[in-house]
């Protein structure tokens, strides 16, 4: 029974978020909200189960990574009002759960280095950054599927510094309309940058771990290339040239890349 707990948690979450998605499609928002709260509870239980069973925070592996990223996605979704956002958010969570089903579910094998602070920070912050990148991807997709009617005041444009910036007349409002779309893009960009900062903290810790283990701050390896690729994808989303940068599809694809790549790296590395 105890060994099956990860499987039970993932199955329960799948069922709950499927109910939420169906309810949102059927416009039964109250039931969908209840399902979401229940989902948060089950996910939180899953993460706490990992912490107390393994006596460390979630680090990697399908069950640990998936549960932790889903919890981040759920917490970051607080404060959003758009139904489209929640539809995409629930779909992405279901997608992550499907990825979990595709792998053996269980706790990772223990390793004596998991007591080391730099090792813990490297793995856990990487998952946190992945959660932020996936959340940014959800925001970009919401922006794509729920576009502004007439972008009168809130629209993406290029900043003076050469970096893409978002200008809104009423930044931070939650009204649904053109201004909200501007703020949605701004939120997506801020989340991507926050993810980048967290990711760099993870890489910094990983470099220190590498230095203490191998004598080098970094090594030529498959993992190093993938980690650098993720950072380059983040850099790409922050350095869009004016012309392609104004195209919604292009912006959405590029903005979603770090989240998608982070998931691929975590589940298929």
């Amino acid at each position: 029974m105890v060994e099956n707990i990860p499987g039970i948690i993932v199955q329960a979450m799948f069922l709950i978020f499927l109910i939420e998605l169906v309810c949102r499609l059927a416009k039964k928002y109250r039931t969908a909200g209840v399902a979401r709260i229940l989902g948060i509870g089950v996910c939180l239980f899953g993460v706490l189960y990992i912490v107390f069973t393994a006596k460390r925070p979630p680090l990697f592996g399908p069950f640990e990574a998936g549960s932790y990223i889903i919890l981040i996605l759920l917490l970051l979704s607080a404060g959003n009002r758009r139904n489209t956002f929640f539809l995409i958010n629930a779909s992405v969570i279901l997608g992550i759960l499907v990825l979990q089903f595709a792998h053996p579910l269980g706790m990772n094998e223990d390793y004596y280095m998991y007591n080391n602070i730099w090792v813990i920070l490297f793995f856990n912050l990487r998952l946190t950054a992945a959660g932020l990148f996936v959340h940014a991807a959800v925001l970009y997709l919401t922006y794509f599927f729920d576009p502004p009617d007439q972008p009168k005041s809130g629209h993406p444009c290029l900043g003076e510094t050469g970096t893409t910036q978002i200008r809104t007349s009423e930044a931070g409002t939650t009204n649904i309309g053109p201004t909200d779309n501007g703020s949605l893009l701004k939120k997506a960009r801020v989340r991507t940058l926050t993810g980048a900062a967290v990711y760099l903290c993870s890489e910094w810790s990983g470099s220190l771990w590498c230095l203490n283990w191998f004598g080098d701050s970094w090594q030529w390896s498959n993992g190093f290339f993938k980690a650098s690729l993720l950072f380059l994808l983040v850099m790409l989303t922050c350095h869009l040239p004016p012309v392609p940068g104004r195209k919604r599809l292009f912006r959405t694809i590029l903005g979603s890349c770090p989240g998608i790549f982070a998931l691929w790296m975590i589940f298929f590395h």
Partner: protein
Amino acid sequence: MIQKLSSLKLTFYNLILMVFLLGTGVVLSRVYPQVFDAMNKILVIEWLKTAWSETPVPALWFVLLCLSAGLLFVNALCCTLTRQIQTAVRSGRIEKWLFFVLHCLFIMVLVCHGLILVKGHKQSHLSFFPGDGIGFKDRYRIEVSDVVFTDDVQILKMKKKEQRAFMTRENIHPKKNFAQVSLYEDTRLVENKRVIMLSPLRYGSVQVTVTRFVVDPKDGRIGVKMTITDNPLNMLFFVIYGLMILCLGLYIPLIAES
């Protein structure tokens, strides 16, 4: 010319090229695992001297990657010193200055990355048993007087892949397993330390790292594999890297509010 070199278009397309090159690196590291092992054992500049004739494909890939990174460096430098500084001076706003400083620090991180490839000293996977010693860089010498491994020695006798499952926090106690290492500079003892896993001996820029414990198959003696490095840039790299993250952390709330 400076206009073109500092353009955002160049940044974007060069980043795409780097994504492609790193993606190729992922594939190459699977096709030529031994080549990438060799790159980690010695300084990359040393590796490159022989790689041209022995493994031209990874060597060419490496040169292209360096060129692309070099172009990113020039691009970032031109953009920072022309556009970004002007914007920061003109607006006087703190987020514009942070944006400028952030890019300056990124350029410095790139420089450190580049210099670490060519500067310093490195000797990897050296086996030491009690009583062994080695000299390096003409003036240093390390001696291993004792190696203590208190956990189950059978784990060390397993193959590397099998070891992983047994090296749990319950089975391995890193603080109790150590190599007693003495470092001499021109015959003068400058450091003596119990070197454990993940806690190397450091003296200035010299670092002596225990990478793993081993058993001599002939006589069953326990020894260690160690790596000796001397890279004065490591400390600088970590400080600049840390400052860059701090700068980004300060910049984010400002743009979120603006």
